[in-house]
């Protein structure tokens, strides 16, 4: 039996959560736990099921199978109680064009029920946001600032962001990162769906990667790197050794003149032996970036729409 302590420590929990749109699978059998106080990145390409997951968590759509809980409350049954604990920023919200920024913030705060006015004022300054203008005169980035400020200022226990920095300039992206870290320090939980891998890499304690409606990977960046290949680059006085291809665990070998790049999974001993025999001038090995991890999970075949890799 699940203890209340565990429930209290779990911000988001899904069990076999699935959503089908007729024959199309929006999400399939998602089992996910997000602990209170952590920042979880939720990554995937377009159509992978990220927004479907978020709309299920918000109770905007109903699951075909499975269920989801937020802080131990069923998202379908206890919608209002759940919504009192969360703040949501969509990728692009439809706001009322005739309201000013200040009026919209007031409206969204009153619909949520509470807000930290002093913190809201700080956020308005941090995001350099002019509240006196009407929404229809705002750029996409400025409209997104309204959502961000409204969500962050209500100090909800769980912040759900769906592509939150779309349209923000680099300075504002920095302000967003600062605010997320502030929220984490404040004990808030953050569920961040993003295409900006550097953002997820910088902010997230754990990363979940969703693919074709299914959870492909979840773990800390370090855990993912351990499971992933290491990139090795070497340059030689002459042609690189052709035997590299045959070393167990080596893949993605690319040769450009006297320069060789490859990836190796598992023990690196065999590769080092072959490379050393060719007397390399330089040798560099590095862990994969999140982008490389992401691409390795998806494969370049899927990533490159217009090309083919053999």
């Amino acid at each position, binding site marked *: 039996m699940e203890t209340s302590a565990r429930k209290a420590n779990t911000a988001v929990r899904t069990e076999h959560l699935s959503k089908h749109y007729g024959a199309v699978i929006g999400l399939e059998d998602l089992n996910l736990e997000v602990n209170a106080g952590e920042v979880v990145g939720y990554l995937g390409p377009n159509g992978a099921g990220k927004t479907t997951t978020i709309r299920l968590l918000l109770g905007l759509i109903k699951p075909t199978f499975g269920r989801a809980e937020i802080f131990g409350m069923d998202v379908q049954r206890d919608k209002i109680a759940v919504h009192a604990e969360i703040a949501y920023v969509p990728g692009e*919200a*439809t706001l009322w064009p005739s309201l000013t920024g200040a009026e919209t913030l007031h409206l*969204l705060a009153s*619909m949520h029920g509470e807000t930290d006015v002093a913190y809201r004022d700080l956020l308005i300054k941090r995001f350099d946001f002019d509240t006196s203008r009407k929404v229809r*005169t705002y750029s996409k980035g400025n409209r997104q600032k309204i959502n961000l400020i409204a969500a962050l200022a209500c100090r909800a226990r769980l912040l759900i962001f769906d592509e939150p920095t779309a349209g923000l300039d680099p300075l504002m992206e920095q302000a967003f990162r600062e605010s997320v870290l502030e929220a984490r320090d404040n004990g808030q939980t953050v569920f961040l769906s993003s295409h900006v891998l550097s953002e997820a890499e910088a902010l997230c304690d754990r990363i979940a990667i969703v693919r074709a409606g299914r959870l492909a990977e979840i773990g800390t960046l370090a855990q993912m790197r351990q499971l992933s290949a290491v990139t090795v680059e070497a340059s030689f006085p002459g042609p690189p050794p052709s035997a590299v291809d045959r070393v167990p665990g080596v893949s993605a070998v690319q040769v450009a003149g006297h320069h060789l790049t490859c990836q190796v999974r598992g023990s690196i001993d065999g590769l080092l032996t072959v490379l050393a025999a060719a007397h390399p001038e330089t040798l560099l090995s590095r862990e994969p970036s999140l982008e490389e991890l992401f691409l390795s999970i998806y494969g370049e075949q899927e990533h490159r729409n217009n090309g*083919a890799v053999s």
Partner: protein
Amino acid sequence: MTSIKVADAAISPQLTSYARPQLATARFTGRRIMRTGALWGLVFGIYVYDNAVAYHTIAASAAQRERLLATMASNAGLKALLGDTRRITTLGGFTDWRAIGVTTLVASIWGLLAATKALRGEESAGRWEVILAGQTTQRRATAGVLAGLGAGVLIMYVVTALLTIAVGARPSVGIGPGASMFFAVAVVAAAATFAAIGAVASELMPTRSRAAGLSAAVFGTAFMLRALGDSTSSAHWLVYASPLGWVEQLHPLTGAQPLWLLPIAGLVATCGVATVLLADRDLGASMLADSATAQARTAMLGSPALFALRMSRALIASWLAAAVVAGLLYGSLAKSTGRAFASSGSLRRFTGTLTHVAQHQLQLAGTRVFAGVVFLILMTLIMAFVASAMGQVREDEAEGYLDNLIVRTVSRQRWLAGRAGLILAVLAAVGMLGGLAFWAAAASQHAGLTFRELLFAGTNSTAPAALLLGIGVLTLGFVPRLTSVACWGLLAWGFLLDMLGSAIKVNHWVMDTSLLYHLALAPAVNPDWEIVGIYVAIGCAAALLGGWQFTRRDLQSS
């Protein structure tokens, strides 16, 4: 070794050319507008047929028909409603008067809505900037939209003309092809005029709703001028100050006066040119600049219902004002019109089957019959308000506005109850205010109508709208994408049945499906409170069922 093959398509561009990309907006707009233009052309054709049949069935004998129509010709109230008459005792004169009076109003509203949607609506939705990024300029794109609107008007003309020619060719009708074609010109002249006015309004106003509001104000003024001019001999000149009056003066079936096309064409051309000239502005800007900044006013932002009231207060005020003005206008004509009505015993077929209950009282209560006809119109206007408001409710869901509220602590029940409650309150207010205004004006003429009976008539007139509201909520719950279609469709269906039911025998099971059919034509007869209660009860049940389903289903975006 790894090698990368790149698909030929990436390095060998094979461009497909599109003919005259600068005409893309015209093609795109035309394709959409032509559909509705053709549909309304079809409805207008059916209406012409209805009138041609009604002429023969309106009275038992030719002598009776002549007496009845002569009575109508001198009836100020009917002139205010449908326009002036000319040779009304002939089939052409009857069709001219009745068909032009109704079709031009519908065509005008179609024109202004189509133009404001195609211009300001597309711009506000952000789709305009994608268009303008292509091989065009703002002026060219605007001209393209106007051309598309023109194509819609043209197809409306073709369909209306063909159907009118077909009806006119019947031996019992005998309207020549030339007259039929000119009749269609008169119908679409109103559409073109108000499409042009809507186009200018789209350049003047910053949002589609304001552009539509400005166009509707011009339309309302034009209608009032025409109605006052036609119903008041000392102020007949007002007809010439109204574009609707110009259309009326065309008299296509009773000695056409094509010269009246000149001011119409002049107005359309002037508005068209002005629209294109004004289009050379910043994207999103408007000529009547709305301040980009404002002091925050946080009143009515505390609950979903209050917020809905705040966002639609101008529209609601317009409906209330329209009900009051119409009530005052027609109330002031009640006494004189009632006198004329009382002299006619064959009015039932003219006003439609809905007035059948009043048949035995015509000679006793002519004024009440006229008031009943006015309240029937008020009834349909209130239903139009409900259809429009339910369309807006659905749009709030489809466009994502609703998401902002229900991801917070606003429940779906609370949101929907607030919206439906607001619509219910407004429809009740429109009905009662219309009744009060009619009473005030009628009382000033000592027409003999009591405050109580007109208040009851106003209340009675809200019943079908309350039922429509319930059906609208039911549709929103189960088939949200059809909400607007269902509401407008039921309204149009009721109209169509009334229209056909007055001319030909329609099975009573079919007539029963009309929301308008069962209501007593108060104050011509006393309201049937049992029927009103049934309407309201069914409406409530439908709304509860729809609301229950709305809380259970997925939100559905556009």
